[in-house]
């Protein structure tokens, strides 16, 4: 039993339309749509077509390599993997509590990453759809077009991203794939000069972040029906929340709510995640399908990410972002919002929150401390959970007495949203495609719904699969490099 439009009854009789690659998202994915002669839609699927096998090849590696290796799953949110792995391995090296400086340096790295990733997603990738319209000229519907038509908005986006990247550079050593976080703490302190450098542009950064929230709010108000209905499907919500119930993107306990907002579980310690969440496999995607155990595989799917987080927490602990959150809640009269396009609004609220948190960290003298590493009695296993820009990220490792990794399990943000994205594009297909000839503009509607979730398809492709074809690879001179055959047994 799958949801409607998951699987057509007679796919062989239908016309196949493909969107490949899905563009202006991070990573590699494609969408297939099956239509009949009346252009009625029978099947819509988002396929994750790549694979890495990380969970297997990390086995046998020394544990201290993991935080640096695992970042290479994703260049947009490397810090998330860097920190989730470090947090899992904190438990292995017995660092129950980090030193005050290490905790703050990691938080600065993480909120810098939230800032840069949210800015990238909104300004560089998604805003062209929202500013120009979903079926605007595809040659203009990109960041270059935004730079030409709305130079101020684009420039602010570029500078917001730059600022987040600088927070990462100062704490991690470089902007992409740094090495600052290690099991038990960090390996690099922040100097007073570096801190002062980061403080200087803060008032501009805060003003641009506020302008970002105002912009999405305005877009929403101008096109209320579209923003509220486009691809909307109800589901449960999942995220971590701080131990005080407030929004915390770096650390906390798992909480899930149902579609109406009632708590399904709360206060679940990271190490117990597997009691509440399991995963399913489908034949047509390398991405697994997780579900909440108590709801079962059919009903138990959920959303993660900004829209889930800001509705799952009790409050946001910084004033500007909390005020913006209250506006969003008031706008729906307190009902849980499920609309994919409202992800953008929630994302900009979080971007503003990240700026406020960074401001607080830069004002905290403990940031400059030079005690960087903690340790304690060794353990065999560790689970690290963090709220990555796109949602809950889970890393779990087992390490043997020779310091080698013997087991690794990752559930990345985008995987949590797998079913939610598939349901959203099916809804868009019903709302906009059914009965119409699928033009470029109409197909972009499908991509708009996918983009709203800000999927990180690179992260989602850390798994491997077998293939149903035969292929030969030859080099530039025509010599055979590799031959593959259909028979899965012989792969």
């Amino acid at each position, binding site marked *: 039993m799958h949801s409607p439009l998951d699987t057509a009854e007679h796919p062989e009789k239908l016309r196949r339309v493909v969107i490949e690659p899905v*563009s202006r998202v991070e990573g590699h994915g494609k969408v297939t749509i099956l239509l009949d002669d009346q252009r009625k839609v029978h099947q819509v699927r988002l396929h994750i077509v790549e694979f890495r096998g990380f969970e297997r090849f990390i086995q046998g590696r020394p544990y201290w390599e993991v935080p640096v290796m695992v970042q290479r799953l994703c260049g947009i949110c490397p810090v998330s993997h860097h920190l989730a792995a470090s947090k899992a391995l904190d438990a292995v090296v017995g660092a129950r509590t980090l030193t005050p400086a290490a905790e703050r340096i990691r938080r600065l790295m993480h909120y810098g990453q939230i800032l840069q990733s949210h800015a990238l997603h909104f300004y560089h990738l998604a805003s062209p759809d929202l500013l120009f319209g979903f079926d605007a000229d595809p040659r203009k519907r990109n960041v270059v077009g935004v730079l030409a038509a*709305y130079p101020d908005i684009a420039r602010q986006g570029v500078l917001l991203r730059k600022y987040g990247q600088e927070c990462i550079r100062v704490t991690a050593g470089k902007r992409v794939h740094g090495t600052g976080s290690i099991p038990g703490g960090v390996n690099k302190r922040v100097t007073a000069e570096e801190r002062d450098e980061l403080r200087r542009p803060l008032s501009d950064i805060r003003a641009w972040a506020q302008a970002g929230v105002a912009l999405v709010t305005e877009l929403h108000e101008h096109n209320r029906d579209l923003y509220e209905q486009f691809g909307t499907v109800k589901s449960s919500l999942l995220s971590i929340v701080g131990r005080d119930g407030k929004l915390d993107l770096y650390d906390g306990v798992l909480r899930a709510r149902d579609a109406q907002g009632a708590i399904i579980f709360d206060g679940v310690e990271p190490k117990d995640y597997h009691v509440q969440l399991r995963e*399913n496999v489908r034949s047509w995607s390398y991405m697994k399908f997780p579900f909440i155990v108590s709801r079962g595989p059919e009903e138990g799917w959920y959303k993660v990410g900004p829209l889930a987080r800001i509705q799952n927490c009790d409050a946001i602990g910084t004033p500007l972002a909390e005020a913006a959150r209250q506006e969003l809640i008031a706008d729906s009269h307190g009902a849980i919002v499920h609309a994919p396009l409202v992800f953008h609004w929630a994302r900009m609220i979080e971007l503003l929150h990240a700026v406020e948190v960074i401001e607080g960290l830069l004002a905290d003298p403990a940031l400059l401390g030079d005690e960087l590493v903690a340790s304690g009695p060794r353990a065999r296993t560790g689970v690290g959970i963090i709220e990555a820009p796109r949602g809950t990220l889970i890393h779990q490792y087992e390490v043997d007495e020779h310091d080698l990794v013997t087991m690794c399990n990752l559930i990345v943000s985008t995987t949590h949203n797998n079913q939610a994205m598939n349901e959203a594009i099916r809804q868009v297909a019903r709302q906009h495609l059914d009965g119409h000839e699928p033009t470029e503009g109409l197909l972009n509607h499908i991509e708009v719904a996918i983009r709203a979730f800000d999927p990180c398809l690179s992260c989602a492709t850390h798994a491997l699969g077998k293939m149903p074809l035969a292929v030969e690879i030859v080099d530039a001179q025509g010599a055979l490099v590799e031959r593959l055959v259909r028979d899965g047994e012989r792969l």
Partner: protein
Amino acid sequence: MTRAAVEIPTKKKLRVATTSLAGCFGCHMSLLDIDERLVPLLELVELDASPLTDIKHPGPCDLGLIEGGLCNADNVRMLRVFREQCKVLVAMGACAINGGLPAQRNHLDIRDCLQTVYLSGHGVERGFIPNDPELPLPLKQVHPLHDVVKIDYFLPGCPPSAEAIWQFLTDIIAGRTPHLGHGLIKYD
């Protein structure tokens, strides 16, 4: 939201296509890390197919930047299209040059990997191995780009720094032979 008049470009711009094959997008991020210099760059460069645009298939281009190595049949197909369409083709970053992190699986049996992830994986219920005509055939090993086509330039680094990418692009745009000075070539 004030909307500026869109200027019509007069001078012929350099046409550039970019793609990510078996890469992590970090090299594309490093390209964006040129920050404000994006504005002057985009005055000299016209983006063709790229993860940043909605052009899905490259047309004839002056320059192609490829991030990531080859891990499946689709990667190989896309690489060939880029080679046909781009006058100058660049392997950008460690993955494109030598396979990078994804090539860590090269010493493993693929079936073993599949089983670890989809059958015996932690928390997997009723697992099996995905198999569908829509999923491209994975290669037994991850290959660097130059195993399959001729590559004109190699930009090392994981990722190459924004400075290195900027130096490379400005050299190409100015018609110079690209030359990365001291400190810009890194093999991290």
